[in-house]
């Protein structure tokens, strides 16, 4: 902290000449940027993602995977740490120049790579080292052009990145609106064309999107203008609307919430009718993972128990359903109805939650994580083993799980829309349960345990029982999701329940915002919907082989930069940024005499807590 504090303040005192830059910093970030670009190229993203077009003939996802890097680094290198009480210099031409230098430096990465591929053959260990990558990096126009172009592109992008600090706020807003809007519309291509077909507006999307995917140049120009105008018109209104909503109290708030909720519900019910099979399938997957994520949100987000073996409950749900309803299940011949099986599934999940939870509940948080991970693997290995083959079918799993017959409709995997509606019902239930639980006595107990287990126990909370309850509730939600999955796919295999699933759900919960239902919703729509689940493709199907990489990088990035997630829960972010809150309080306290005594107390309280830890 102190290093970042002193660095900007010392440079601010020096004479602000254009060349008087922090060259070491530029060198560090520029070099890093070059290395990241080389790494991304060698991992194969530019070539693998080439097929997907963002703007037809101009920008493909492949190039996009490289282009964002200098932009981001240019932004980062000229960013100044803003600290209360420390003078922050205004952004100036020097910052822009720093961004430019970083960009030029990062051009070294593609240059070295191009020259390297041209002269050496490292194809043997590095699978992507080859003519395809060379072709891609030189834009198919020879090495000289490629090298020069990359220097130019990187310099411009670095410049643009750093310009974001200098531009006036309104312009920045328009630019970011346009960029995100274009990306958004291009990514949602499948959804939008499905919708327009449903409403009989094919001609519109035919004009908008090119035949081989991606926006056409003309339509993207029009869109830029439209979104730009839109962003200028709506300036300040979106924020105003949300803050107005937040300020509402009592009855009015309730009424506004009901309007909002019924609007969302109506959309959820009506929209799938106009969507095609692929998008509905996608929505059904999002729903399944949302259900899982809601359960994990209770365990990790509310109670603060890091359960890495969460997939075990998913597996229990799937297998219980398969055994009870399938005619092919090895030892239980009667075919139960899905609804009846579901009751048993929930009971089984609760039981498994207790059995797995009880031994681990008193362990240290990190041991618990590894042990639950072990349990997750054990359950999968047991389902796969020859030993339990007479019960669960071994590696072949159980096939022929019948579709759900609801009397008025049949939910099968062939008709993803019906699966989506079924999942929607369960998700709504789960959201309601989580929402009610959050404010309940149990929910408050969970949050107290998350913040400090010993204090919670001292306040009279039975921590063991509360944590077990979290396990059980989470397990039940996961099991329901597993049951629907079994009915949807029509079979269960042990390999659908790898540890990978737990970790992906963990990423969804963390990226969305731990302990916040809205966050989990956003997380599952953005991640599962766009990137896809462990086996299920998302909107960007080309990401199939890179999505796990992106999940990993996202997890690290979020933990470092924004541990409270995209949509933070107010309480959780206070916990995570306790020091900063206290510091702010302290700085504010300096101005007011009355608050001074309190402010002195607060830092004292923190050091007191730390001090208590030592002798214990």
């Amino acid at each position, binding site marked *: 902290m102190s290093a970042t504090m002193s660095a900007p303040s010392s440079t601010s005192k020096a004479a602000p000449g254009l060349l008087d830059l922090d060259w070491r910093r530029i060198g560090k970030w520029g070099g890093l940027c070059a290395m990241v670009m080389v790494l991304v190229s060698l991992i194969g993203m530019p070539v693998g993602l080439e097929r997907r077009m963002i703007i037809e003939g101009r920008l493909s996802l492949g190039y996009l995977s490289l282009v964002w890097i200098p932009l981001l680094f240019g932004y980062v290198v000229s960013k100044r740490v803003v600290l209360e009480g420390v003078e922050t210099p205004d952004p100036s031409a020097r910052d822009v120049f720093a961004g430019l230098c970083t960009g030029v430096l990062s051009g070294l990465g593609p240059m070295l790579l191009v020259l390297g591929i041209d002269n050496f053959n490292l194809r043997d260990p*590095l699978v992507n080292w080859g003519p395809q990558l060379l072709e891609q990096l030189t834009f198919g126009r020879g090495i000289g052009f490629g090298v020069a172009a990359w220097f130019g592109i990187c310099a411009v992008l670095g410049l643009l990145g750093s310009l974001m600090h200098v531009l006036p706020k309104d312009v920045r807003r328009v630019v970011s609106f346009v960029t995100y809007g274009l990306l958004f519309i291009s990514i949602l291509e499948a959804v939008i064309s499905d919708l327009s077909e449903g409403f009989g507006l094919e001609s519109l999307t035919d004009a908008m999107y090119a035949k081989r995917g991606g926006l056409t140049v003309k339509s993207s120009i029009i869109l830029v203008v439209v979104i730009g105008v839109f962003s200028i018109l709506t300036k300040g209104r979106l924020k105003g609307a949300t803050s107005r909503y937040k300020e509402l109290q009592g009855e009015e708030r309730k009424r506004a919430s009901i309007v909002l909720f019924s609007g969302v519900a109506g959309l959820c019910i009506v929209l799938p009718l106009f969507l095609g099979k692929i998008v509905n399938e996608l929505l059904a997957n999002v729903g399944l993972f949302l259900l899982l994520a809601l359960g994990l949100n209770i365990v990790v987000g509310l109670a603060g128990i890091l359960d890495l073996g969460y997939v075990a409950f998913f597996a229990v749900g799937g297998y219980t359903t398969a055994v009870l309803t399938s005619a092919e299940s090895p030892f239980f011949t009667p075919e139960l109805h899905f609804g009846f099986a579901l009751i048993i599934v929930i009971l089984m999940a609760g039981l498994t939650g207790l059995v797995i939870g009880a031994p681990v509940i008193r362990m240290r948080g990190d*041991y618990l994580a590894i042990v639950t991970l072990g349990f997750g*693997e054990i359950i999968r290995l047991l389902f796969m083993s020859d030993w339990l083959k007479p019960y669960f079918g071994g590696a072949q799993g159980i096939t022929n799980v019948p579709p759900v017959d609801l009397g008025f409709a049949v939910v099968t995997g062939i008709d993803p829309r019906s699966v989506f509606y079924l999942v929607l019902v369960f998700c709504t239930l789960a959201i309601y349960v989580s929402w009610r639980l959050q404010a309940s006595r149990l929910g408050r107990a969970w949050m107290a345990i998350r913040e400090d287990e010993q204090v919670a126990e001292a306040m009279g909370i039975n921590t063991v029982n509360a944590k077990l309850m979290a396990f059980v509730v989470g397990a039940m939600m996961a099991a329901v999701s597993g049951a629907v999955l079994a009915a949807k796919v029509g079979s269960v295999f042990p390999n659908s329940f790898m540890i990978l699933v737990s970790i992906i759900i963990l990423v969804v919960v963390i990226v969305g915002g731990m302990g916040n239902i809205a966050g989990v919703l956003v997380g599952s729509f953005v991640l599962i919907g766009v990137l896809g689940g462990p086996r299920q493709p998302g909107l960007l199907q080309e990401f199939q082989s890179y999505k796990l990489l992106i999940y990993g990088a996202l997890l690290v990035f979020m933990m*470092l930069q924004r541990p409270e997630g995209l949509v933070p829960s107010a309480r959780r972010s206070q916990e995570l940024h306790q020091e900063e809150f206290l510091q702010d309080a302290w700085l504010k306290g300096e101005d007011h005499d009355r608050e001074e005594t309190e402010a002195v107390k607060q830092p004292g309280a923190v050091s007191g807590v730390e001090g208590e830890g030592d002798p214990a």
Partner: protein
Amino acid sequence: LTAIINRQSARRVSRVDRFLTFIRVFLVGLIVIGVLAFLAQQFIPDNPFARWRNPDAMGLTADQFKGLLMSGLSQGAMYGLIALGYSMVYGVLGFINFAHGEVFMAGAMTGFIASEKFNDSGLWESNFLLCLVLIVIMAISISTLMAVLMERVAYRPLRNSPRLIPLITSIGVSFFIQNAVMGLFGPASKPYPRLPEWLAKQRSILTFEIAGTKLLVLVVAAVSMLGLWYLVESTKTGKAMRAVAEDKEIAALMGINVNRTIVTTFAVGGAMAGVAGILWGLLFRSVTHMTGFLPGIKAFTAAVIGGIGNLGGAMAGGIALGSAESVAPLVILEPLGVPGVSQLKDVVAFTVLVLVLLFKPSGLFGERLSAEDRA
């Protein structure tokens, strides 16, 4: 009133406790019955108890048993080497570096790439020992670099955050490295070149038949362990490491560069994982990007068994886990009539972890943690 509350809370807790006792008794009972059945089948094959669960049990010959033990030992030695990294990092920083298995995988991968190149140039055949030394050095440097980078990029900014946050970060790091390696080198399983005949052949030592490779693994593991022991117990760096593990703030006040010591800890752990990676490659002769996952978790198990933060314990825990994993399926599960026991190897390893944490959470040899982590 307090008495009622006390009684109530006592009763509530006891339900979980009773369940735990049940699990303990059940697992121990299972082990005892399994071993007894095994012994019965071994010595009095016609006795009804021996035939009770598994009428077709053949028992094991002495040679088979020794073979199992030897492969368990050599695998355990590898777990031990990886476990050292977990143990040291946990001792100093108090969190599980989940990505340590990936450091091990990077070592094995480097070994594969280098040995393949050597094999192409013919050096592998003509001068195997030189190649071995070279690939070990390369693997150590890559693994060390990786561990240090990991610390710098992902863990240092989180030095003072709650314990679970660096753990979650390390899961992300692990995921990232796995998939980056898959992207760089492809998903196919990569075979190490053939080992020279004089190394791979069976040798007999004290009536123990052992493949030369396994012997090599044991010797290299022992040498690395001794080297590490010397480093930690008898050098200034080691003293600094122990001091930082005990209390970072006081160590800093004593003039120890805490940051550098932490980096050294990661580096040493990474080096050990690199050695283990090469040994893995020589023993199993195949590497994929997923190679680090299971051995990583098992190595953590080994570190817990030995008592986390305790280096000798980590090695002993590794060897105990390796032998348990290789012997227990045949000695405990087979006599109980469980078919396909070799599939349950990993189940045994995780059950051992649960058992240790149920009976003795501080490990067999006692954990060595800093004052704040002990809480």
